């Protein structure tokens, strides 16, 4: 993983926090806790909050490390958090995943308040999916709660979670892509403008989004301290409960139905399907990769073959419906090894934020040990006009091993693609495909899939 470091060896996603920062030594990830944060850290560990949250699986566990501090003059302690196998971002989550992350954040805040602490951040980037569950990965997010103080992370919570969830549920599920543009969450005036007018009859959305946006505009630049005002613990609890119930009521059903079946509309026979599953299973068991990426995973049928053979897998797809279905299935199965994510392979997640270094691009989070590219090549080569040698380059940078399916022009799905466009793809043949990929890969296996015109390849990058 080429997680970006700044000149001081610190990981660039954590540079803003005066409480401490992440740094990496020989590939091991550490978090320095600064002296400034000593009281809070001690309270977290000694109040029982840490233990409670870790036991519930909502906070990343850590151990205290002997590693020398990266900036020893301000250091109180160095801790080693459990490593998250794959970092994902809110614009790559389905509706259900963002909702789970939101409810987990609020649940942590409720537990923290009971033990005299409060979250000082409610950033969606502090949540990662670990063992199938939304988990807070920033151990330094807590502050000591003083009765009377409001929730400092309230605005951030509304921007990172409530606004995008409301837009996805009530306007269009694709609006989660606003998070790719607005790194600190959807501005509330924009959310207020985009949401349907009748959301003003929903008490939670009326207050936390519409009136909130209005108040931001009205009181912009005013000194608040002069106006006084404080907030009892009971009032704070009321606020958190209101956010919980507002979010719980937001629903989005994939494709209008609970379980649409994607594979009904493909041209696969059962025999072809089973043959493909068998090959993917055998090859994964042979390779024993640490992590696999399934690119164009649909609702994750082949990702499950990989996860069942013991390999954790990231299941990427462009379709929010497929990703949501996949996520719901992960929850039903309690699958701890499969993470569904939203990704457009023709325009994968860029690196964003300060100096383009806060959030890694799709490519920077690779290469994977193994990538699956099943039934995607024709979409990339024909629908998206990418020449085969460039596809070979892309996959060679993405994974060390590749399982890729070649779908010829004679295949009915490709015929459909070509029906509406001129055939400007003379090299799109099995021979042309193999020639292009041989430049970057060694082809270990090429197996014709039973009862189909397709071929499945196992390749290793040169």
């Amino acid at each position: 993983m080429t997680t970006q470091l700044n000149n001081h060896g610190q990981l660039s996603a954590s540079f803003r926090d005066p409480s401490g920062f992440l740094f990496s030594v020989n590939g091991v990830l550490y978090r320095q806790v600064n002296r400034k944060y000593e009281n809070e850290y001690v309270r977290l560990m000694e109040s029982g909050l840490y233990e409670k949250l870790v036991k519930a699986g909502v906070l990343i566990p850590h151990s205290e490390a002997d590693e020398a501090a990266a900036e020893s003059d301000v250091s109180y302690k160095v801790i080693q958090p459990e490593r998250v196998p794959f970092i994902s971002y809110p614009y790559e989550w389905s509706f259900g995943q963002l909702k789970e992350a939101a409810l987990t954040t609020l649940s942590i805040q409720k537990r923290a308040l009971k033990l005299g602490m409060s979250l000082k951040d409610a950033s969606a980037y502090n949540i990662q999916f670990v063992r199938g569950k939304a988990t807070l990965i920033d151990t330094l997010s807590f502050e000591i709660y003083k009765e009377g103080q409001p929730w400092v992370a309230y605005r951030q919570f509304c921007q990172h979670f409530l606004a995008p969830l409301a837009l996805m549920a009530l306007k269009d599920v694709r609006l989660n892509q606003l998070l790719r543009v607005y790194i600190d969450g959807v501005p509330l005036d924009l959310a207020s403008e985009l949401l349907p007018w009748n959301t003003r009859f929903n008490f939670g959305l009326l207050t936390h989004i519409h009136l909130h946006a209005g108040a931001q505009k009205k009181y912009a630049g005013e000194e608040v301290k002069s106006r006084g005002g404080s907030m009892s613990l009971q009032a704070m609890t009321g606020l958190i409960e209101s956010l919980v119930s507002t979010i719980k009521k937001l629903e989005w059903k994939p494709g209008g139905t609970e379980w649409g079946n994607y594979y009904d509309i493909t041209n696969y026979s059962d025999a072809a399907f089973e043959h493909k599953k068998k090959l993917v299973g055998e090859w994964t068991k042979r390779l024993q990769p640490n992590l696999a990426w399934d690119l164009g995973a649909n609702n994750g049928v082949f990702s499950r073959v990989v996860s069942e053979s013991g390999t954790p897998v990231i299941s990427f797809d462009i379709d929010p419906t497929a990703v949501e279905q996949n996520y719901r299935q992960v929850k039903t199965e309690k699958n701890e090894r499969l993470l569904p994510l939203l990704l457009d392979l023709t325009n994968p997640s860029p690196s964003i934020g300060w100096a383009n270094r806060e959030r890694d691009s799709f490519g920077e989070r690779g290469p994977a040990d193994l990538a699956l590219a099943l039934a995607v090549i024709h979409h990339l080569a024909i629908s998206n006009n990418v020449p085969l040698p460039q596809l070979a380059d892309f996959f060679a940078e993405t994974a060390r091993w590749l399982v890729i399916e070649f779908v010829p022009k004679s295949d009915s799905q490709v015929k459909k693609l070509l029906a509406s466009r001129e055939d400007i793809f003379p090299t799109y043949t099995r021979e042309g495909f193999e020639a292009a990929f041989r430049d970057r890969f060694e082809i270990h296996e090429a197996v014709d899939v039973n009862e189909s015109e397709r071929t499945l390849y196992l390749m290793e990058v040169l």
Partner: protein
Amino acid sequence: MHFAPLPYLDPGSGSFLIQLLIAAALGMGIALRASWSRIKGWFGSKPKADEDDDDTIK
């Protein structure tokens, strides 16, 4: 209407004030609910357990 953030105007003040207003109203609701469940308690109905006291979250 403005389309770019105004550089010196911090939306934080509004967030702070609206939060106090909403929270005051909702806190009252919680207080009412608490007294109501106490009244119900006199007549033998048990209060609901808070799900966040569980050690597992769904």
